């Protein structure tokens, strides 16, 4: 075991008292991103930006079929090609089953896959891989591999997949099945969570409103393609340089899959060109690069092409969501029943967790007494669903926030007023799985103020100005949303902060900065404790050899969980500095002041941190000392950020075409530790949500082939398509967060689909209930009579 290895051990220690918010030096300032210059000048080094002349080229042979059994693979001809070093198939790689899903072991996901599966379950699934000295040899070898497939019946629709006359995707036994799994009928899990008395709730209601909502499959589309370079170092350790959000989990999963000691695996995460969830998992090419390196003993480089990434990298689950609500005439929600069928694709991966999140986050916003969630995740022969910013809650929020508007309309109440009346308040609990302790009362809830600020910004009470030409109609629509700050009782981060002999700090923390700015924020937190400038802090976070365990960057956990660990480590170091100074001057440690980068004992001269560090290391006043503080964070809490978002649209009633003309985000993320970064997250999240709202979709033809030739067929929203975006920070203070912070990475991705759907309803009286919202759907609905 390496010195830093650490599985989650103990429950949380209480977080140290936070500094008063206004005495800050570095936090709550928009300091430049520490990696910003490198990124914008092109000097930053991404996974593939290292010389790889010494690397073998690796490539994956992928299944052309949606469902087939590999009867045999003949690799002889491929192996005979000059330059080919290795050809590997399911026969060469361990038979162990696992899940690629990037949570600490055991993830809440069935162990239903191998590096190469004998039965392939979606188009593009890896069947074999080649390493060769030239790209040309690789290409020829891929063509020379002969695979004898027995094509099996496939199923693409989740409803059909649960039927009796459909193929079973996973007939073999596998471990770690999730709640009420029924593999024979392709059910990954079936869950039910009930509070209160559902029947009584409906009986007490004046109106019962039902609706069905559907969401499509979309992709994260980070700029950098999935890439993995693997080699064996001079101490026979496996090194993997790769695009990941979770270096430590990746290391653990690779070690487990190949049955090697974790200490013999190193994962390096250079700069990463975006993640948005897709890099939470240990993706197939990471295992394959490792397998090829282990097989050949040489360095092997694999990088998906954009088209490959579009076809095989994990997507946002499509869902069908039914909601039934009982409401009183005065606007009180009496009962909610949400039922979700989620398409998890070929493997279980995030099927269970995404399903849970789809219901729990949106439903938490409306803490009525009687709530029921029923749902299931289903296998089908499409690309497996994965983690994507918003993680289920995008789907659930589209459904619930559309439905809430529908209910408000039904009882003739203003949708904002209806939300205000029912939304969660401080001291109320979120609606979470029964097993979770996170239902603790929320200590910072800025929903009401978010709504207020959003309404003010757009001028909600006046409504939109209508164009003179009544061919065009304008409307406003709103949506509330709630996210989390990490997975409670799972997230774990450990951090070490060292006082260097020159008085600067080195922060070692294993968070995965994928461009979101986590290294900057960790630096700010450590700097703040000492009143230092951010430039006096170096954050080392890109290598599992140099950092202690951290789950990584997902579930909006980084600022809250890793940030808390960093704050504790910095405070631990500060305490050691005080103790030592107290020793030197024979005073009480409490009396030693630490501020503005200076150490000030009550008697004796104050000195800069660098003078202090140099003296400590010189050993003038006692034994040589080099001080390191450490801290860890593991918590049953997961404070919730909130957003109120409003879309303004203009609809052309003649053609159904529409434009989102304005968009407002009012966000409560606790204290914004770096306001510029926070705004970036808020706007970026909203844009991603808008893309899913108006255009993006991955569809499969009847044979299960993804209908995408490349990026040009994926209608990603462009900068030129964007509305005016206004962002309002509604800062609350989260007492358990580092300097009052909660998370902000996901919450604004959730609202746009419903806000736009509600705005269109407001403008022209038609409700679009399936994503994406296209002009054709609006036109159809308009023809159907208003």
């Amino acid at each position, binding site marked *: 075991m390496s010195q830093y290895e650490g599985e989650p051990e103990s429950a949380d220690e209480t977080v140290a008292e936070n500094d008063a918010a206004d005495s800050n030096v570095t936090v709550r300032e928009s300091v430049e991103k520490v990696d910003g210059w490198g990124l914008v000048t092109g000097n930053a080094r991404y996974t593939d930006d290292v010389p790889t002349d010494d690397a073998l080229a690796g*490539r994956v042979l992928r299944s052309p079929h949606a469902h087939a059994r590999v009867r045999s693979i003949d690799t002889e001809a491929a192996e005979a090609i000059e330059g080919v070093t290795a050809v590997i198939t399911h026969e060469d790689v361990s038979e162990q089953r696992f899940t690629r899903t990037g949570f600490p072991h055991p993830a809440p996901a069935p162990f239903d896959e191998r590096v190469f599966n004998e039965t392939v379950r979606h188009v593009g699934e890896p069947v074999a891989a080649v390493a060769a000295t030239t790209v040309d040899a690789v290409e020829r070898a891929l063509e020379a591999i002969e695979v004898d497939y027995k094509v099996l019946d496939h199923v693409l629709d989740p409803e059909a997949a649960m039927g009796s006359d459909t193929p079973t995707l996973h007939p073999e036994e596998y471990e770690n099945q999730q709640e009420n799994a029924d593999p024979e009928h392709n059910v990954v899990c079936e869950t039910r969570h009930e509070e209160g008395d559902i029947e009584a709730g409906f009986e007490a209601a004046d109106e019962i409103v039902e609706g069905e909502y559907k969401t499509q499959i979309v992709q994260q589309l980070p700029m950098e393609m999935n890439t993995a370079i693997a080699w064996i170092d001079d101490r026979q350790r496996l090194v993997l340089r790769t695009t990941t959000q979770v270096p430590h989990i990746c290391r653990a999963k690779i070690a487990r899959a190949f049955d090697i000691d974790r200490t013999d695996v190193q994962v390096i995460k250079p700069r990463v060109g975006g993640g948005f969830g897709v890099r939470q998992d240990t993706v197939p090419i990471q295992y394959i690069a490792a397998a090829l390196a282990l097989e050949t003993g040489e360095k092997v480089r694999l990088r998906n092409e954009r088209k490959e990434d579009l076809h095989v990298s994990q997507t946002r689950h499509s869902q069908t969501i039914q909601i039934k609500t009982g409401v009183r005439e005065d606007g009180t929600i009496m009962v909610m029943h949400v039922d979700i069928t989620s398409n998890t694709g070929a493997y279980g991966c995030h099927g269970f967790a995404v399903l849970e999140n789809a219901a729990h986050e949106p439903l938490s916003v409306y803490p009525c007494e009687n709530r029921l969630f029923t749902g299931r995740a289903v296998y089908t022969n499409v690309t497996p669903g994965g983690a994507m910013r918003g993680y289920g809650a995008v789907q659930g929020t589209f459904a619930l926030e559309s439905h809430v508007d529908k209910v408000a309309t039904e009882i003739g109440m203003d949708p904002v007023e209806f939300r205000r009346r029912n939304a969660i308040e401080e001291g109320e609990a979120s609606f979470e799985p029964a097993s979770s302790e996170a239902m603790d009362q929320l200590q910072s809830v800025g929903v009401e103020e978010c709504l207020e600020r959003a309404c003010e910004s757009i001028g909600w009470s006046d409504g939109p100005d209508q164009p003179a030409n009544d061919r065009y109609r304008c409307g406003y629509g709103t949506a509330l949303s709630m996210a989390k700050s990490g997975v409670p009782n799972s997230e774990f981060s450990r951090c070490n902060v060292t006082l260097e002999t020159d008085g600067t700090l080195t922060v070692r923390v294993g968070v995965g900065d994928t461009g979101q700015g986590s290294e900057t924020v960790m630096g700010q937190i450590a700097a703040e404790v000492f009143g230092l400038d951010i430039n006096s802090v170096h954050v080392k976070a890109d290598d599992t050899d140099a950092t202690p365990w951290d789950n990584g960057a997902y579930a909006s956990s980084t600022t809250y969980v890793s940030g808390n660990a960093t704050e504790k480590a910095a405070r631990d170091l500060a305490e050691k500095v005080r103790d030592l100074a107290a020793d030197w001057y024979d005073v009480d440690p409490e009396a030693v002041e630490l501020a503005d980068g200076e150490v000030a004992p009550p008697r004796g001269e104050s000195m800069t941190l660098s003078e202090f560090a140099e003296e400590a290391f010189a050993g003038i006043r006692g034994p040589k000392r080099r001080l390191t503080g450490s801290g860890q964070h593991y918590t049953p809490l997961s404070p919730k950020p909130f957003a109120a978002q409003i879309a303004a649209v203009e609809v*052309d009633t003649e*053609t159904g075409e529409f434009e989102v003309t304005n968009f407002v985000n009012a966000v409560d993320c606790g204290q914004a530790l770096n306001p510029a970064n926070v705004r970036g997250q808020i706007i970026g999240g909203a844009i991603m949500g808008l893309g899913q709202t*108006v255009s993006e979709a991955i*569809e499969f033809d009847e044979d299960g082939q993804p209908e995408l030739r490349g990026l040009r067929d994926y*209608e990603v929203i462009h900068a030129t*398509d964007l509305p005016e975006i206004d962002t309002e920070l509604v800062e609350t203070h989260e007492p358990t967060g580092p300097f009052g912070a909660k998370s902000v990475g996901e919450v604004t991705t959730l609202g746009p689909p419903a806000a736009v759907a509600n705005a269109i309803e407001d403008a022209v009286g038609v409700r679009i209930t399936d994503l994406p919202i296209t*002009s054709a759907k609006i*036109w159809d609905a308009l023809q159907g009579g208003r």
Partner: protein
Amino acid sequence: MSEQLPAAYVHADTVDKAVELVSADAETRVVAGGYSLLPQVKDGIETPDRLVDVSRIDELRGISHEAGETCIGALTTHHQIATFDLVHEHVPALAEAADSVGDYQARQQGTIAGNLVFADPKYDPPAAFLALDGRVVARSPDGERTIGADEWFCGPGETALGPDEIVTDVVVPDAKRSGYVRTSEYSGYAIVGTAAALDVDGDAVASARVAVNGVKPFPIRLPNVEDELVGKHIDDELRSRAASAELSDINLETLLMNGVVADHQRLQLVRTYCRQAIERAIEGD
């Protein structure tokens, strides 16, 4: 799986040299800006043995106006067409179509000839070219010939250009009263683009050409709409008449199915944008 690049890539310095090279071998393709061809090559849809790059042939560049016609060299880019005063003045529909093309990079790199030869149903200049009754000047080993817009488009991505011919110029007669409008997907490509060109005698329409892309696999004219316009005085009634004209020329069954816009709505888009193109044309000076 990955890109197959052609074995040979050569530059031609003169039109004659280019003609010689393309006529020598059926598997040779001309490449100008490469913005249509190279994606096809990358996808393995086109597998030429050899590419002849014509982008250095200076005689294929430039815009001139003479005797009531604008003559545009084959290599002229969309950006040049969209920003050149002469084009705006004499054939606004062409300038507007060029200005609609994709993004700045595509307009800088894409050429008029490449666009018309590739003849993708989602491209913009083809509808303008058809409404403006332009013609293509092409050269082959047998000499030069011109091909009129009505004969140019033969099928999806098919034109009347012979395999041994090189386009040298695109010529369009003046049509000050012309316009092009489009509505686009998020990809930036047109869903429907419509162009109208009117010849006005006094204050009545003497002749009209209206063309639309995005409806069939190649741009088509709408004779019914044109008939509605001819002989009419330019007034509000004309504008609404144009919009209500029966669009029976468009056979619904052959409508393009690209999933973005359903067929019946596309018909409405054609109606709406046709009217707008006609309005634009009427507003021309």
